[in-house]
């Protein structure tokens, strides 16, 4: 009993009366040694030199864990001349019974104990309890993980399973230092799974090295966990292959686990450092600070950022570059964070947008306001290149306001006057106002891969609102193009980022120079000016499904002529029903014809365009009314044209002519 350092005074030698088989009964209020504390210990033995014995403790505190109703029964128990227990059985509430044998010999009090935890698993404890360097060594192979985790509440919903190989050395006394435990726990075939299967692991292997020492009522030490292999799924984040190492200093008190000098090396990404405090009983986080520098954004995105978006059906995006991160957490979650990106690159995996050489400083606070700063050296939206710009945004829990900024586009720029998001009654709303400076059409059309067009395009967006998934335009969007303008009014874009974006709008086109428009295409050349009105325009997935459109030559005095090729194109558009009301002989003689008016309308419903013209003539409708010499009229007869067929015909007659440089 020498290793038992503290022994309560109430050692009572009882008479045989309380247990008929026992010659000796001992009772201790409490016994403690190193990391073991026993309460209400009773020993009943047939004799000191042999025979059966029974040792019970109402409570045992072993390395910080409480066991109730601990019981050891020995078939043959002796204290003299040497202590041994043979044919024993050890149990506690919820544990065992396990066959056990031990012996304690010689002046060094050499202990050897074997506990058979199962048919396959035996834990062996050996070592000296006395002498110059009293220490114990525990070796156990294939200990069930669930046995080690015991009743830990945080682990219960995940039903952890696995085998752990344990090698531990317990130095009981070392030059005035308190007892010290060094252990290596090697997990193999580890797996766990939540009921819904969204938090799970399989074939996990990991090695934990732990060095722990008693410090007053607490335990303190260091631990290193090396994840070596297996698969891990945590909600939408899936990791495989291991290669990540977590190390920390820790202090385990009655109420909390404090981790300091925390370092997490994430395979291929970089190192996070910090500290954390967890509630001991619930394993809930009380507070944590994490920081990391020069983290690889590409892998960080692939493993941790992208997956939650992908799980919600968002299109994938790609990030590259390096990032520094810092975050503070409290029981309510993320309290504040800062992300600094250097030399970054962000693009949509489908190539719809990209920003390059991105530098960003993005501070964030749960309960306060911050200013974020982003610069990009270049980028692309669709096929349109974007030049260097710097963006500042004020970010608070309920609003985000981007400061006015000019974003260079080709030879012009997009002036963002207002871009603001606000959360009202739990829902985010947005407001935008912008001007597009006049942009060279040759440059724009070249960038878009369209037929080269002349002139310039500019636009003014007075105010766009974003409410409940709908973008709507207040006032008119003015687009200056081809010497005239297009005014867009009543514009609504419903669920622009959804699977079926829908657009509602009216358009008004005035005084558009047909020369500039038609010279671009193989269509043929028309000189003149055009007005148009489109009402009830409805696009679904960016393709028209309904509208009432009417285009006509503008009022006023200006040269009006149409080339023979354009006449052919227009008649081809009308299909076999359209004819040019002029003798073929004349058509062949003249290159260009005069006209007085052009007018065509299309009412699109259910994939069919119902066409009409300036007036009716001989059961048809007049598309071009001749005037001057030589005059020419074009009459259509086919009033119902399939919209898809019309688009195909239009594509044929507008094939780009070669652009001569």
């Amino acid at each position, binding site marked *: 009993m020498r290793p038992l350092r503290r022994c309560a005074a109430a050692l009572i030698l009882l008479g045989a009366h309380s247990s008929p088989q026992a010659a000796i009964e001992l009772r201790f209020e409490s016994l403690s040694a190193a990391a073991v504390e026993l309460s209400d210990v009773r020993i009943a033995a047939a004799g000191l030199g042999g025979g059966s014995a029974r040792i019970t403790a109402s409570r045992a505190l072993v390395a910080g864990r409480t066991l109730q109703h601990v019981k050891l029964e020995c078939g043959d128990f002796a204290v003299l001349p040497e202590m041994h227990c043979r044919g024993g059985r050890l149990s506690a509430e919820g544990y065992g019974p396990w066959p056990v044998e031990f012996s304690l010999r010689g002046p060094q009090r050499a202990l050897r104990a074997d506990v058979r935890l199962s048919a396959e698993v035996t834990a062996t404890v050996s070592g000296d309890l006395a002498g110059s360097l009293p220490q114990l060594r525990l070796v156990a192979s294939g200990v069930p993980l669930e046995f080690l985790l015991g009743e830990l509440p945080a682990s219960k919903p995940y039903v952890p399973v696995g085998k752990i190989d344990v090698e531990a050395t317990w130095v009981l006394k070392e030059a005035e230092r308190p007892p010290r435990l060094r252990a290596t726990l090697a997990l193999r075939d580890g797996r766990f*799974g939540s009921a*819904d*299967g*969204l938090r*799970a*692991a*399989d074939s996990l292997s990991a090695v934990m090295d732990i060095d722990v020492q008693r410090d007053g009522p607490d335990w303190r030490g260091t631990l290193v966990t090396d994840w070596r292999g297996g*698969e891990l*799924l945590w909600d*939408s*984040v*899936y990791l*495989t292959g291991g290669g990540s190492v977590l190390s920390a200093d820790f202090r385990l008190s009655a109420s909390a686990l404090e981790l300091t000098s925390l370092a997490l090396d994430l395979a291929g990404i970089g190192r996070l450092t910090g500290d954390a405090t967890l509630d001991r009983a619930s394993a809930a986080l009380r507070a944590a600070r994490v920081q990391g520098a020069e983290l690889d954004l590409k892998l960080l995105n692939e493993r941790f950022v992208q*997956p939650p978006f*992908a*799980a*919600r*059906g968002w299109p994938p995006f790609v990030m590259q570059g390096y990032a520094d991160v810092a975050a503070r957490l409290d029981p309510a979650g993320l309290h504040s964070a800062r992300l600094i990106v250097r030399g970054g690159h962000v693009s949509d995996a489908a190539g719809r947008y990209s920003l390059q050489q991105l530098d960003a400083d993005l501070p964030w606070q749960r309960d306060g306001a911050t200013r974020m700063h982003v610069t990009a050296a270049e980028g692309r939206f669709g096929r349109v290149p974007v030049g260097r710009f710097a963006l500042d945004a004020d970010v608070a829990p309920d609003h985000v306001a981007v400061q006015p900024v000019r974003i260079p586009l080709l030879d012009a720029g997009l002036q963002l006057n207002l871009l603001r998001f606000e959360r009202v009654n739990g829902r985010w709303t947005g407001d935008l106002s912008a001007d597009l400076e006049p942009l060279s059409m040759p440059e724009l059309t070249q960038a878009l891969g369209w037929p080269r067009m002349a002139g310039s395009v500019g636009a003014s967006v007075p105010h766009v609102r974003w409410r409940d998934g709908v973008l709507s335009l207040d006032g008119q969007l003015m687009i200056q193009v081809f010497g005239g303008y297009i005014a867009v009014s009543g514009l609504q874009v419903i669920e622009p980022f*959804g*699977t*079926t974006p*829908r657009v509602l709008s009216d358009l008004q086109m005035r005084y558009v120079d047909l020369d500039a428009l038609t010279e671009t295409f193989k269509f043929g050349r028309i000189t003149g000016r055009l007005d148009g009105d489109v009402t009830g325009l409805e696009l*679904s*997935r960016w*393709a028209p*499904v309904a509208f009432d459109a009417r285009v006509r030559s503008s009022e006023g005095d200006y040269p009006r002529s149409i080339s023979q090729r354009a006449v052919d194109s227009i008649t081809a558009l009308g299909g076999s029903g359209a004819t040019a009301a002029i003798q073929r002989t004349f058509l062949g003689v003249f290159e260009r014809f005069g006209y007085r008016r052009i007018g065509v309308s299309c009412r699109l419903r*259910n*994939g069919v365009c119902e066409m009409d013209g300036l007036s009716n003539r001989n059961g048809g409708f007049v598309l071009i009314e001749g005037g001057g010499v030589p005059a020419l009229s074009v009459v259509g007869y086919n009033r119902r044209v399939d919209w898809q067929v019309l688009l195909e015909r239009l594509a044929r007659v507008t094939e780009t002519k070669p652009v001569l440089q």
Partner: protein
Amino acid sequence: MKTVHRIVLLCVMYAGAVWAQGNLEINTPAISQLRDAMQARHAQLAPHYASGALGLTADGRIALRDANAVPLAQRQAVQGLVAQENGDRDALYREIARANGHPEWEADIRSTFAQRWIGRAQSGWYVQSGGQWSRK
């Protein structure tokens, strides 16, 4: 409402009858695109209906009811498929309502489609009724 139901039912019967032939005739470009996307995705979803990982819900969507039936490495991807499929299903109901000129019919169309999907589910697939899952 009777008219709504009759028209929805007609649409659905028609859709149901020809869906399997890949020839749905509720013919707006948006609906055709949704149909194509859903048909292309169905080949990836079908084994997970059969395994019981996915089930058909009473509101005309699908749900990952038991991820344990999916190999761990594929669970992340299946979550994405489910989100995409539900996005398309929601859009489909909305589009059919719009195509018929009655956006307010969306809920009726959804519930009629839900019954139809469940009715046509293969034997062994999980379907939801009154919040409970059952195997057909």
